């Protein structure tokens, strides 16, 4: 436990908690809007974006964040205006991103290692930019939920009712996918491209399953996310395991427990 005294560990734990809460809260609304697959689609697309930015020699995190934001809004545009289901666009985006990364890998072998580090992430190596980014994303999530909570309740319940009640439905849909993009980008830092989507899906699903109110779901999913993240990091430190994998394994364990509890 003396490891907890180290700066990098404390930083990792802090960033982990911020990411956990941001993703859990956003994830609840994504799932209720049937956008559970958004996280997986965007994070894999981001892999292509990261490869491209490394090849071009630009800052990967910021460059890819912009790309992912544009893309998520594009997917939402197709869904709204062209009636192309979100799952379909996201499946294309998912494979497109990975394909791009694979092709770019072939062009230049030089950056394999730095690219691979994004596959699994590492919450124990957090740069200052990444720390500030997770604080900013956390604040953004809290702000947008505080301002638009009532509208989001209605929107997740029934879009027609939300519109008739005067909620800015179109704006809120774009806002939701934009916030989700930011959340996915910071989760990639924590657990990597392959596991980022678990942050916006698993704890939120546990919360939805176990609570009899929306606020209760948000609370439970945040708790599950935070506890999984903290215990995952501690397990990884003590047994010298990969932190990302450990965190997600704990999340899945809570999901299984929730399934059993829910049955009764």
């Amino acid at each position, binding site marked *: 436990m003396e490891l907890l005294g180290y700066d990098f560990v404390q930083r990792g734990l802090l960033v982990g908690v911020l990411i956990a809460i941001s993703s859990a809260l956003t994830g609840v609304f994504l799932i209720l809007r049937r956008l559970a697959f958004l996280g997986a689609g965007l994070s894999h697309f981001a892999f292509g974006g990261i490869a491209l930015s490394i090849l071009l020699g630009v800052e990967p995190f910021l460059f890819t964040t912009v790309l992912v934001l544009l893309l998520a809004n594009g997917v939402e545009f197709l869904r709204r205006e062209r009636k192309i289901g979100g799952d379909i666009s996201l499946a294309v985006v998912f494979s497109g991103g990975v394909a791009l990364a694979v092709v770019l890998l072939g062009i230049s072998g030089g950056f394999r290692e730095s690219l691979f580090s994004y596959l699994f992430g590492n919450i124990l190596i957090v740069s200052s930019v990444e720390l500030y980014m997770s604080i900013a994303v956390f604040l953004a999530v809290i702000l947008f939920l505080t301002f638009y909570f009532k509208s989001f309740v209605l929107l997740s319940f029934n879009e027609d*009712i939300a519109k008739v009640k005067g909620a800015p439905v179109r704006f809120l849909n774009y806002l939701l996918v934009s916030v989700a993009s930011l959340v996915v980008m910071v989760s990639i830092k924590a657990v990597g491209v392959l596991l980022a989507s678990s942050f916006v899906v698993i704890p939120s699903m546990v919360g*939805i399953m176990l609570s*009899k109110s929306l606020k209760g779901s948000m609370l439970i999913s945040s708790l599950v996310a935070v506890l999984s993240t903290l215990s995952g990091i501690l397990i990884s430190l003590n047994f010298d395991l990969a932190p990302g994998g450990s965190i997600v394994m704990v999340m899945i364990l809570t999901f299984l427990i929730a399934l059993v509890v829910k049955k009764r």
Partner: protein
Amino acid sequence: MQKEEVVRIENLSFSYGGDYEVLRNVNLSIYKGEFLGIIGPNGAGKTTLLRIILGLVSGYKGSVYLFGKNVSQFREWERVGYVPQRLSVEKLHPVSVRELLSSVVRRESDLEFLIEFLHMEELLDKQFVKLSGGQQQLVLLGIALSSKPELLLLDEPTAGLDIHSQEHIMEILKSLSKEEGKTVVMVSHNLGILFPCADRIVAIDREIKYSASPEDSEKLVASIFGLHGNE
């Protein structure tokens, strides 16, 4: 004196894409204080018509006015209440009745009024998706009534409910119409409960087949649709 038009529809035609017109040259005025029943077979375009009146569907030909204003420019949505057909709510949705109602009322006193008016005390802390059909419909009605609207549009509000719940809903609608003077537009297949409450019946099947009093309507229904009483 001219009766005040709450809804005015002029030469409305609409297609979801392709040549097939779901609605063809519909002209309809709905007047302040009236209880209008809309009937017609499945797929007749009744839901589409309500959604067009509410500005939820665009890309139609013709004009739709709400309280004298073109619906695309209409902003005073607190004057309108809507109970949609068969809610497609996520089966796992955790939202509680209290959360739903709190998200639509302006003040706490409005919430208390609604709870009392619809006798929903016991439902407040339950999950919406766990309620019975009749209770869900009551909550939807509460959401629609939360802004004290002058115009209420309901899409098959009694479909799939037991007799007791159907009567309860109709009781409420009747009092809203007769005692509070609200304009009520209700789509229903259940002629047996609709006709006694309605002032006028409009039958549509892509186009308006007729507009008549409930008494005359009973004869017309049989001749046009071959429908009989309840469904």
